């Protein structure tokens, strides 16, 4: 299984994430954070992440999605957002009929798919900062993203709690009280 995994192209790895999320992921931020969380709990695809405006971001994943679309593995629909920008919906063949999965990777993705994207961004950012060595990653997240944190930090912590409750090869950083 591991050999099979590592021999896949980046595009195929990106498709696998959407596939395991039930065949649809709404938003590039959600896709990026989903891939990041999988990565840090040992269920990822090997994409490298760095800190960007919306928290952990992988250029490799962004490129892989473009290639996957060009190759026809996924479809991307762009829609106007209420705030004036646009957002994307990614679709790929789903892995099952939508039943709740017991597999950790799919359970994580199912949780992420339903999450508020702002809360997800904050939760992923806090995890990233914890791994960077910040002793109080939630406070640092608030400092960096005060406008978002003012309204969504509690939701982010709750989401983090849900994600942490799923048993994974590597536990999420322990940053909740």
């Amino acid at each position, binding site marked *: 299984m591991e050999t099979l995994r590592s021999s896949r192209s980046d595009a195929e790895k990106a498709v696998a994430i959407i596939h395991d999320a039930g065949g649809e992921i709404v938003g590039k*931020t959600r896709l990026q954070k989903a891939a990041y969380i999988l990565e840090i709990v040992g269920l990822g695809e090997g994409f490298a992440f760095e800190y960007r405006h919306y928290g952990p971001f992988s250029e490799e994943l962004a490129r892989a999605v473009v290639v996957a679309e*060009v*190759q026809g593995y996924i479809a991307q629909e762009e829609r106007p957002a209420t*705030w004036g920008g*646009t957002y994307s919906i990614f679709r790929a063949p789903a892995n099952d009929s939508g039943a709740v999965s017991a597999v950790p990777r799919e359970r994580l993705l199912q949780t992420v798919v339903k999450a508020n994207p702002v809360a997800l961004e904050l939760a992923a950012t806090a995890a990233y900062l914890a791994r960077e060595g910040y002793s109080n990653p939630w406070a640092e997240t608030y400092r960096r993203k005060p406008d978002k944190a003012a309204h969504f930090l509690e939701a982010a912590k709750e989401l983090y709690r849900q994600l942490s409750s799923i048993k994974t090869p590597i536990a999420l950083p322990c940053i909740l009280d």
Partner: protein
Amino acid sequence: MNFSFQRIRDPLHNVIEFPRDEFHDAMWKVIQTREFQRLRRVKQLGFSELVYPGATHTRFAHSIGVFHTARKLMEVVKRYLGDPGYQETKARSSLAAALVHDLGHGPYSHAFEDVGRRLNLTMADHEKVTDHLVREGEVGSALSGLGSGFAADVADVVKKAGHASIYGAVVSSQFDADRLDYVQRDRLMTGTHHGAIDFSWLLSNLEVGEVSYGVDGVAVGKIETFVLGPKALHAAEAYLLGLFQLYATVYLHKTTRGAEKLFSEMLVRTIELARSNSVTKTGLPKSHPIIQFAKHPEKLENALDLDDLVVGGAISLMVHAKDPVIAALSKNLRDRRLFKCFDVRECLYQRLSGVELAEKEFEAACLSVERRLLDWSKENPQGVPHLLIDKPERPIYKTMTEESKGPLDQIMMKPTHGTGEPFDVALVSQVVKAIRPFRAFRVYHEKGDEKAKRVLSESIDEEVLKWKP
């Protein structure tokens, strides 16, 4: 306290003044540090001088130009935020960040970073090096003269790790001081006549306004950013078109990229040999800064010892290397005997003319050719690779999506009648809407490499046959 008045003569901005005050005195001290003076020995455009002989300007001159431009942008911020909205401390952090933002660049900047990525060398990443230099060392000390936490604040602005705000937009946005300096300076110094921008008009029409932003489909709130008055629409279009043209003709020029490819191969080989205890094969002495960096790439001091002069000077030693790959590549670079460039996109466009291809289908055809070439290269390895593939892509302007750098990275226009929220320039400009990312697909090979030519030709024939059976 007595502060002195300082001036610098600049080819782009003419006189750049450092008035007699505490802030400018600290900035002048930053310029005198070893780390900043090193930028005199790092060219702004690396190998571009192989194409444009005048492009020998340095990151030193550019950095001071960015600082000067940032002060002009900050005057706009101050005018619009007024008293008590304008925050002097935040403004100072951003202005200082403008001055030091390029401190960490290595020799031949981008080519060196490519080597760093390939070999996972921590201190080849200019952002990491800059972060260390701003927080520590002589620059950190000079900045700390303005307050104990000032150096950390400046580092956060450079790293974009702080709260995104209009002050940060001066250093990082579509209209940041970095870009506004380099589009003008690089045009001037290369001598190209492409890419002219109407800087004075843009600046004269620049204001601060509030725009909405969100994450995916969810609205978050409003943020202050730069907006342009309606009379600057065509200047904004020219600015983006100018960027596109500079990418095509200067930054991603086929010859410059070809030289960078050879440089990367040469340096990767040198570092690998140095790390496998084969320094004697590299042509360099053990004490050479390149060897020291290869042995301990995690040491900041080793990264600081590298600049264009050190690496460029090493080439005359490396031509005598026992390793044939290093000797060959360094001779190529020394004598400007670069590999031949084959433009795969152009060839496919020509060969597939008459076939109705959607953009995605054309990109898929390119990917398919690339895959064949990569597979063949894996099966046919040799010291100096037969094929060096280069596929740069540079989006010139993205409308605001969650993948962009956020609301501060858009060009927002003020409505003509002054009421309503600013809107993205791409909504009203057909020109901006039509600008596609700059993409290239080039393959470099040695002039007489018949194997390379044959596999290129066969790979393209195979793809063309799919569409023109």
